[in-house]
C-alpha cells in the first residue's frame, strides 16, 4: 500500500474533495454496485466513485493510480460475464459513469451525435428519434445499460444484420487512461486514416485499457416504414434456407431475422404475463423477420408478402403472421424479449453465447444438441439467436420439476463440449457478451498464444500497474 495519506476507510483523501458526497459512496450504499445482473458475482467495493465530468474521471484515476488502488469501470451493470463488478470483496473501487449522462450535441446533417458515456442506451435512442434519426443499437438491456458499457462490450443486439455491432456505430471516442491521461478522439468523421486508429482498442476491451467518458455516435435516417412477420418452420435447415432467400430477395431491406425454438416460445407464454403466441399450430422453429425503410410507400409490404408466398410455396414456411400495426409489431417483439426473461431463472441455467459462420449454423446446433444430450440427457436446450450474425444463444437448463438434474454436476463438461465444437467450426465462444471474469480460461484455451501475448503487451503498455479492471479478460 502506498505511503501517501489514506483515510480510515482505506480511501485516498483527495477523492472526497474531488467528488463530493454525492460522488462518493461507501459502506451499505456502495454494496449493491458489487452485484452483477445475474446475481452470479457479489463482491462489495471499497467505494463507488461517481464523477460528473471527464476532468473528475481523470483526476480520480490519477489519484487511484498514485495509491495503487484497483478500479473497476462500471456502466449499467447489465453485463453477463461479471466484467463490471469487482473480483475480490472490499479491495477495489468502482468507477460508475451513471452521473455523466448528457447528450453533448446532435448534428442531423452530419448524422452524428456526441454523448457522455453514462447515457442510458434507451435515452440515446430517444434523443436520436426526437431529431428524426435512428441510433440502431438495440437489445434487451437497453433500458438500463449505458452507452459506455455497450462500447466496452462491443454489444450487438437485434440490428447487427443491417447496421453492425457497436464498433460499427462509433465515429469518435473520449477515453481516460489509468494514469489520468485524457485521449480526446471525439472526431465526427467517417474517414480519418491518421495513424493507428486508437479508439478501436477501447471498443470491446471491457474496461481493461481505459475508461470511456464520451463517444460520437453514427446515426441513420429514421425508419418510417417497417413490416414484421413471425414465421413458423418445419425444421432448422428450413430456417437457414429461408434466411438465405430473404437476404437475397429483400433489396437490402432486411433488418432482423431472429430465430426462436418452440420450447422457448412456450415457456415465454407460460411464464411471462401478456405474451401470446399468435400462431395456432405447433412448429419446431420460428423466426421474427423484419424489413424496414426510411421512406413510406417503398413497397415493403408487397416485398414481404412476395417473399413469404415463395417460402410457403417451397414448403420452407408453414404458417405465421404479419403484424398489421405497430402495436402488433411490439407484441411480436415482446415474444422475442420474453423468451429470454422466461428462462433466466430456470435451474442450472448455462448460457453459451457463441457464433459460427452463418452457413454452418443449422449443422452446429444439431451437432451440439446431440453432444449435450450425450452428457446431460435430461437437460432442456433453448437455442435462439440472431441468424443474420451467425450468433446462437445456446442455453441449457433444467425444467422447474427437475432441479437436481444432471447439469448440477456436469456444467463444465457440457460447456467444454459446446466450446470445443465451436472451435471446430472456427467460431467464437463469446459472440456478444465478452470474456469478463467468467470466460478467461476459455480465452486462454481457444485463442492462440501469440494473440494472447499481444493482448498482454497492449495491457502493459496502457496500464503498466494493472490497476484497471483486474481479473478480467486476461
Amino acid at each position, binding site marked *: 500500500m502506498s505511503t501517501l495519506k489514506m483515510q480510515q476507510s482505506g480511501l485516498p483523501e483527495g477523492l472526497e474533495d474531488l467528488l463530493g458526497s454525492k460522488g462518493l459512496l461507501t459502506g451499505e450504499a456502495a454494496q449493491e454496485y458489487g452485484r452483477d445482473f445475474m446475481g452470479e458475482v457479489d463482491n462489495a467495493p471499497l467505494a463507488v466513485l461517481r464523477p460528473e465530468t471527464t476532468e473528475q474521471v481523470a483526476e480520480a484515476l490519477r489519484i487511484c493510480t498514485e495509491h495503487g488502488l484497483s478500479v473497476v469501470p462500471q456502466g449499467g451493470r447489465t453485463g453477463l460475464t461479471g466484467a463490471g463488478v469487482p473480483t475480490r470483496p472490499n479491495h477495489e473501487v468502482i468507477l460508475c459513469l451513471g452521473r455523466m449522462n448528457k447528450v453533448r450535441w446532435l448534428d442531423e446533417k452530419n448524422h452524428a451525435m456526441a454523448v457522455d458515456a453514462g447515457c442510458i442506451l434507451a435515452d440515446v435512442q430517444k434523443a436520436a428519434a426526437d431529431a428524426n434519426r435512428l441510433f440502431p443499437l438495440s437489445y434487451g438491456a437497453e433500458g438500463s445499460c449505458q452507452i459506455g458499457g455497450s462500447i466496452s462490450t462491443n454489444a450487438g443486439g437485434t440490428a447487427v444484420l443491417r447496421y453492425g455491432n457497436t464498433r460499427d456505430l462509433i465515429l469518435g471516442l473520449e477515453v481516460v487512461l489509468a494514469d489520468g491521461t485524457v485521449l480526446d478522439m471525439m472526431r465526427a468523421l467517417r474517414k480519418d486514416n491518421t495513424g493507428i486508429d486508437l479508439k478501436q482498442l477501447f471498443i470491446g476491451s471491457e474496461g481493461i485499457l481505459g475508461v470511456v467518458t464520451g463517444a460520437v455516435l453514427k446515426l441513420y435516417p429514421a425508419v418510417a416504414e417497417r413490416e414484421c412477420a413471425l414465421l413458423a418452420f418445419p425444421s432448422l435447415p428450413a430456417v437457414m434456407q429461408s434466411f438465405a432467400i430473404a437476404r437475397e430477395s429483400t433489396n437490402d431491406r432486411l433488418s432482423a431475422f431472429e430465430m426462436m425454438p418452440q420450447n422457448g416460445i412456450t415457456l415465454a407464454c407460460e411464464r411471462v404475463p401478456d405474451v401470446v403466441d399468435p400462431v395456432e399450430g405447433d412448429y419446431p422453429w420460428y423466426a421474427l423477420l423484419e424489413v424496414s425503410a426510411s421512406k*413510406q410507400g417503398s413497397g415493403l409490404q408487397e416485398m414481404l408478402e412476395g417473399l413469404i408466398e415463395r417460402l410457403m410455396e417451397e414448403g420452407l414456411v408453414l404458417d405465421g403472421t404479419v403484424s398489421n400495426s*405497430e402495436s402488433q409489431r411490439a407484441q411480436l417483439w415482446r415474444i422475442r424479449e420474453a423468451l429470454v426473461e422466461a428462462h433466466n431463472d430456470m435451474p442450472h441455467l448455462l448460457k453459451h453465447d457463441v457464433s459460427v459462420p452463418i452457413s454452418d449454423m443449422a449443422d452446429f446446433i444439431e451437432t451440439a444438441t446431440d453432444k449435450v444430450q450425450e452428457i446431460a440427457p435430461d437437460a432442456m436446450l433453448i437455442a435462439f439467436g440472431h441468424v443474420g450474425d451467425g450468433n446462437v444463444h445456446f442455453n441449457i437448463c433444467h425444467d422447474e420439476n427437475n432441479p437436481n438434474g444432471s447439469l448440477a454436476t456436469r456444467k463444465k463438461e457440457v460447456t467444454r463440449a459446446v466450446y470445443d465444437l465451436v472451435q471446430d467450426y472456427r467460431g467464437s465462444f463469446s459472440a456478444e457478451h465478452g470474456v469478463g471474469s467468467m470466460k478467461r480460461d476459455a480465452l486462454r484455451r481457444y485463442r492462440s498464444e501469440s494473440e494472447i501475448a499481444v493482448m498482454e503487451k497492449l495491457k502493459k503498455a496502457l496500464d503498466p500497474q494493472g490497476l484497471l479492471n483486474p481479473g478480467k479478460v486476461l
Partner: protein
Amino acid sequence: MKVLVAVKRVIDAYVKVRVKSDGSGVETANVKMSMNPFCEIAVEEAVRLKEQGIASEVVVVSCGPQVNQETIRTALAMGADRGILVQSDEELQPLGIAKLLKSVVEKEQPDLVLLGKQAVDNDFNQTGQMLSALLGWSQGTFASKIEQQDGKLRVTREIDGGLETLDLATPTIVTADLRLNEPRYASLPNIMKAKKKPIETIEAEELGLDIAPRLKVLNVSEPPARQAGVRVESIADLVDKLKNEAKVI
C-alpha cells in the same frame, strides 16, 4: 345476416404525432398508417359473428384515397369476405362519411353495420351516430358485447358508471368499444387468400352527394410539455406540495 363493417385508415396509434409548424394540422407525410384500432375490433367482431354462424357475409367498406385498399386488405386477411372502396381524395369528415356509408348501405342492404366507436386521429365519435340518424335505424354505441337473442341483437354498452343492455331489432348500427374483443393476428394462409378476395371501387363523386367539409380547423397545437418530476426530501414536503402547489388535498 349480412354485416357491413366500416374501417378507417389513420396514423398508427403507436406513432408519435407531430404537429405541422404552421398549426394547420398534423404531419402525415412519411408516417406509418394502420387501421383505426376500434375499426379493427369491429372487423374482429364481424368475423367472429360469421364463425359463430350468425353472420352470412362480412363486407368491409372504407372511404378515402386509393391506399385505403391496404386497410381493406388487412380486414380481408382477418376474415372478411369482400371489400368496397368509396374513393375520394378530398378531406372527409364524419357527416360526409356517414352520407357515403348510407349509399353503400342502400346498395348492399346489410342487417348490421359495425363501426369503431371513434377514430384515434380526430376522436370525433360521430360517424356511427350520424349514419343511424340518416338511415333512421336503431343504434347500440360503445358495445362491449354482442349476442344474438330471439332474432334480435343484444348489445351490452359501456356507459358512465356501469353497463346498459339493449335489444336491437335489425337492421341496426353498432359501434365497437375497446373491450368488445381482442383482434386476431391474420395467419399467413389467410393473408395470401385475402389477395384474391374482390375489392370493388365506387367513385365518391359519382354518388352526387354533398360531402364537403362542414368543420374548419383553426389551429392545431401540441399539448404543453409535461414538467419533469422532482424528488421531495420528506413526506411532510410531499404533503405540503400536494396541498399548496398541486392543490389536490
